[in-house]
């Protein structure tokens, strides 16, 4: 952020600039459902209702306040929004009906876009693998995704995980919910080209969004 900001011919000192809600405006412009952040009245219901409880850095209530306080770096590099499990407990209880879950995911993907997301973050790792996996053919290959995740920390850790989960996997296979041959070939949707075209178009729309200025 600049020490001095100018509007027209007037110079505003740095203290005043702090109160200009630049980061809130940035969130409104670039984060999905970001325009809802200012509606938060800091009641605390979401923070108190979140099943993650004390296990994360900042509950949504605090994150929204940090956005309004202009704590850009702290918010975007935070681990918090990556921890959201999408249980929607907060959303159903928020007295102001903020789409909290969506905002949490919105901030996470914005941080990812800017390259500010934390390097080591299991949800982020999973999201990246999931995205790569499902955009390849247009259909998620569960076998490949699971195996990829298990072996991400090396062969030994991977084998250990597989052994741990083996009874579950066998159960799923018996019930016809898991097909080991998917590992080799996997099936894909009919109109793979259509899906690729759709994704391309989505990327183009995203690229058209107002550039980030700060």
């Amino acid at each position, binding site marked *: 952020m600049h020490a001095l900001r100018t509007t027209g011919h007037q110079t505003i000192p740095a203290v005043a600039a702090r109160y200009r809600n630049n980061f809130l405006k940035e969130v409104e412009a670039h984060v999905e459902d970001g325009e809802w952040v200012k509606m938060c009245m800091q*009641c*605390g*219901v979401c923070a*108190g209702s979140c099943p993650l409880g004390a296990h994360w850095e*900042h509950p949504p*209530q*605090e994150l929204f306040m940090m956005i309004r306080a202009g704590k850009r770096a702290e918010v975007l590099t935070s681990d918090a929004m990556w921890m959201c499990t999408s249980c929607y407990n907060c959303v159903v*209880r928020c*007295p102001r*009906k903020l789409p909290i879950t969506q905002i949490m995911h919105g901030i996470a993907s914005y941080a990812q876009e800017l390259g500010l997301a934390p390097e080591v973050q299991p949800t982020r790792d999973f999201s990246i693998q999931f995205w790569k996996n499902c955009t390849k053919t247009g259909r998620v290959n569960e076998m490949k995704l699971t195996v990829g995740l298990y072996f991400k920390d090396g062969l030994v850790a991977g084998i250990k995980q597989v052994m741990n989960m083996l009874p579950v996997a066998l159960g799923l296979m018996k019930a016809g919910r898991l097909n080991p041959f998917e590992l080799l070939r996997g099936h894909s949707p009919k109109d793979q080209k259509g899906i690729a075209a759709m994704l391309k178009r989505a990327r183009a729309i995203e690229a058209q969004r107002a550039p980030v200025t700060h």
Partner: protein
Amino acid sequence: MTAPIATSQTILVVGGGISGMTAALEAAECGRDVVLVERSPTLGGRTALLYRYFPKMCHPTCGLEINLRRLKANRRVRVLTMTEVAGITGRRGDYQATLKIRPRYVNETCTACGDCSAAVSAEIPNPYNYGLDKIKAAHLPHVMAYPQRYLLDPSIIGTADADQAKAACKVGAIDLEMQEETVQLAVGAVLWATGWRPYDAAKIQPYGYGRFPNVITSVEFERLADPSGPTGGKLLRPSDGKEAKNIAFIQCAGSRDENHLRHCSRICCMATLKQTQYVREALGDTAQSTVYYIDIRSIDRLEDFYQMVQRDATVKFVKSKVARIAQADNGDPILHGVDTEGYHRYATAHDLVVLAIGMEPESNAIALPQDVITDSSGFIEGSPDGGMCGAGSASSPLDVNRSVQSATGAALRAIKVIYQTASEEA
């Protein structure tokens, strides 16, 4: 009962709480004829069910008594209790109102001696104590009731209890043959002073009202604190009758919430501040009140009252809307949430929880005439032609003082309608 004589110059006031009484009296004292219709067996409304009222902590008796005296001195107000408006047709200056009068089974000659009450054995949940205790099926609503006349609950009609009540009455005031009556009334203006009711606390699922006995509402707490209430003024918690010393108040219970009432009920911050002083009065320095709040809204001069309570060492404030309540094995409610000043997580046990329940317009439960406009919460504004308008807490969540101001303003509007109708007719 004979139909009251009314003309297009008459003002109909619906609801006989402090607002309806005020509107009726102001108009009558300006020389207008008024019919005041009250659904319950007594005037006074919900004000009569408060232990004391802020900001001066006086007993509701004073305010009501002055109005009752004015009422008795005025011949222009006709009071109809146990009466509801079944329908209104017409327009400004020319309305036809249909009134339904429920049978009271006791006529004007009642001396309020109480013999009938002693003679019956059946009891019903006491509506004047929000069902916290029982009342005899032949009863006087409460000490401040107007008219001071007993009534028989319809549930005992046709039973031996009713015959015993009739036999006990020395003046022959009991008439078991009374039937519901329908009365047509021509009136020029209508004031809706139907008041408010507490929001249904059971709908606020995470707070466990109805599941956890020691979670009660602020209107119930008023009755607990009142010496003429179900506990004789002792703050006993429902689960085990233990005296509650460590009491939590949860603000905005049902208010300021898009899932419940979207408006701020405006009086509940002050009601809680007042109730912390009931706790102090009952327990002295051993009292412990904790107020969980989003913002404390004590407007204008009521701020002084807030500052007084802030200085009270028995009262603690926690800036947080409680997320949920759980119940410990000993019946203590445990409050879970995160405190906004520092984002600390808490799980705090209390003896009793009082939900500062929101005010919902009573008229949400009745069918208003079609041309009555309400706001997004259901509070009554009035008809576009000005012939009908809301008065007091029926028009907005208001305390007694502001209800009276609103009712006075409404009376003036009704007088104007009558005045203009009269000059058009002349």
